[in-house]
């Protein structure tokens, strides 16, 4: 309950510490804790992207949520991206984190291959990840290990294929038929 009622006007005049050209404090904190957690840090357009090895993603999220000063207690969004059938690794999974006390944001990115599209679930860190991960599974076919209820969410249960993959045609594989 300690994150209740944060000051609307934070004492720092700079509202987004990740903005600008200075190295991101989030990435620095992660690297200091465990260098294996960070593959690459990209800073562009005022946003920080940290590429995390997939086996560490749940641990990194737990660390970012619990560490004082970072306090990423709010998972805004999880979304997938398909680089195309030829690309290797093929899929990206983006996690957009926000802090309701520090008001900063960060993006974590995990890249996985098509043949082994498994990512550890972060539902143990934030329960809101449940539906986001189901959506990513439904539309991209990325499997989230240890997810409590990994079913399709937007498309019907008997749907064939994953609709947001680049090799899935816009109008489906076959013409619509009532047969």
């Amino acid at each position: 309950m300690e994150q209740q009622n944060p000051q609307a006007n934070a004492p720092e005049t700079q509202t987004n510490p990740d903005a600008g050209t200075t190295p991101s404090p989030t990435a620095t904190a992660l690297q200091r804790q465990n260098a294996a957690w960070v593959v690459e840090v990209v800073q562009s357009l005022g946003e920080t992207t940290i590429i995390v090895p997939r086996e560490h993603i749940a641990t990194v999220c737990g660390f970012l949520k619990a560490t004082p000063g970072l306090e990423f207690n709010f998972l805004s969004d999880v979304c997938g991206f398909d680089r195309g059938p030829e690309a290797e690794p093929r899929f990206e999974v983006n996690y957009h984190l926000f802090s309701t006390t520090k008001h900063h944001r960060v993006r974590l990115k995990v890249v996985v291959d098509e043949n082994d599209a498994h990512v550890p679930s972060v539902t143990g860190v934030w329960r809101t990840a449940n539906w986001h991960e189901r959506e990513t599974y439904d539309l991209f076919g990325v499997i989230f290990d240890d997810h409590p209820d990994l079913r399709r969410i937007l498309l019907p249960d008997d749907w064939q294929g994953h609709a947001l993959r680049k090799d899935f045609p816009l109008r489906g594989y076959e013409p619509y038929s009532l047969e």
Partner: protein
Amino acid sequence: MSAAVNIPPQFEIVDQPLDTQMTISMGPQHPSTHGVLRLELVLDGEMVVKATPDIGYLHTGMEKLFEYRKYQQGIVITDRMDYLNPLGNNLAYVMAVEKLLQLEIPERAQTIRVLFCELQRIASHLVWLGTHALDIGAMTVFFYAFREREKILNLIEAASGGRLTPSYFRIGGLMMDVPAGFERRVQQFLNDFPHAVKEFHTLVTGNRIFQKRTQGIGYISATDAIDWGLSGPSLRGSGIDVDVRRTNPYCGYETYDFEVPVEQDCDVWARYMVRMREMTESHRIVVQALARLKPGPVKADAPKVVLPDREAMKTHMDALIHHFLIVAEGFDVPAGEVYHAIEGSKGELGVYIKSIGGPKPARVHFRGPSFVNLSALPHIARGEMIADVVAIIGSLDIVLGEIDR
């Protein structure tokens, strides 16, 4: 007894009370599910043991469609997501693209965007108020709320030509400037609105039946609300003071004087009070935005992105060339990825756009606040009475167009 005779033999007639749990399907045609939401309810008597939302009835593959359309064509798709807050969707999308292009938006366009977004927030909250009260059994307020909303839709129509699908914000500014006499019409609305809010309070807030139906119902603690990713009025009803307009200001919101309403009760009533107070605050912002409107350009100075004026096309060759290229081929957006969040009427509306160059996005993803807020329903509805599920859905203010996309 004569009716029972006509029942076909394959149906078993049960005239004993059930002592086991019962599973019923609520929706997708149920009027209080605000569209096509189906809930699978496991009931013990009238108590909800488990509520499982079943969504996707309105899924039309909008995120897929974005990848096949040019950036400027995507604006039209955003209108159809959260159809009660289309200008908010427009804003989130165009601001994300503008961030990729690093465009500067003129002052007047920013002010008009703020003005319209706040009007749209009031309109969205009015639909919520009318339908929420209607679900609980108060029918009258629906007509009063829609009367006020009509005035806002007329203003949006006057500027953009569309009532529900305005597509008014464009990449680099606005579709066109507001018509002559627009300020006077907004002023008329602003003069009338405080009285209307007073009417709503008289009709609903003091109503003891409404209070009994909402107070202490649908409790979600502050910690749980953050854990479930609630945002907007639903989060602020649990005592968390987070508003994207304050925490990550955009469009110059940091220069406006307004309050972020927060209630501590964590129930349906608290979420009701937050939205009612928000309408008054939005009214305050519109008053300030209207006072700030100074003549000036409403489109950014970026001829390769922003469509030229009609008159310029008739006199300048390069304007005609730019127009042809933008319409026929689109404009190149540099490779990169952005996540831009705004405070929509229902919560944090985030847009993730990934560009790999070229005139079409590689991926557009909408973080719909309704989608996330609805995902918390099983947690909130657990242990409540079945009649209160309707009140809880109303208090989360969901729009299925945005959930299913």
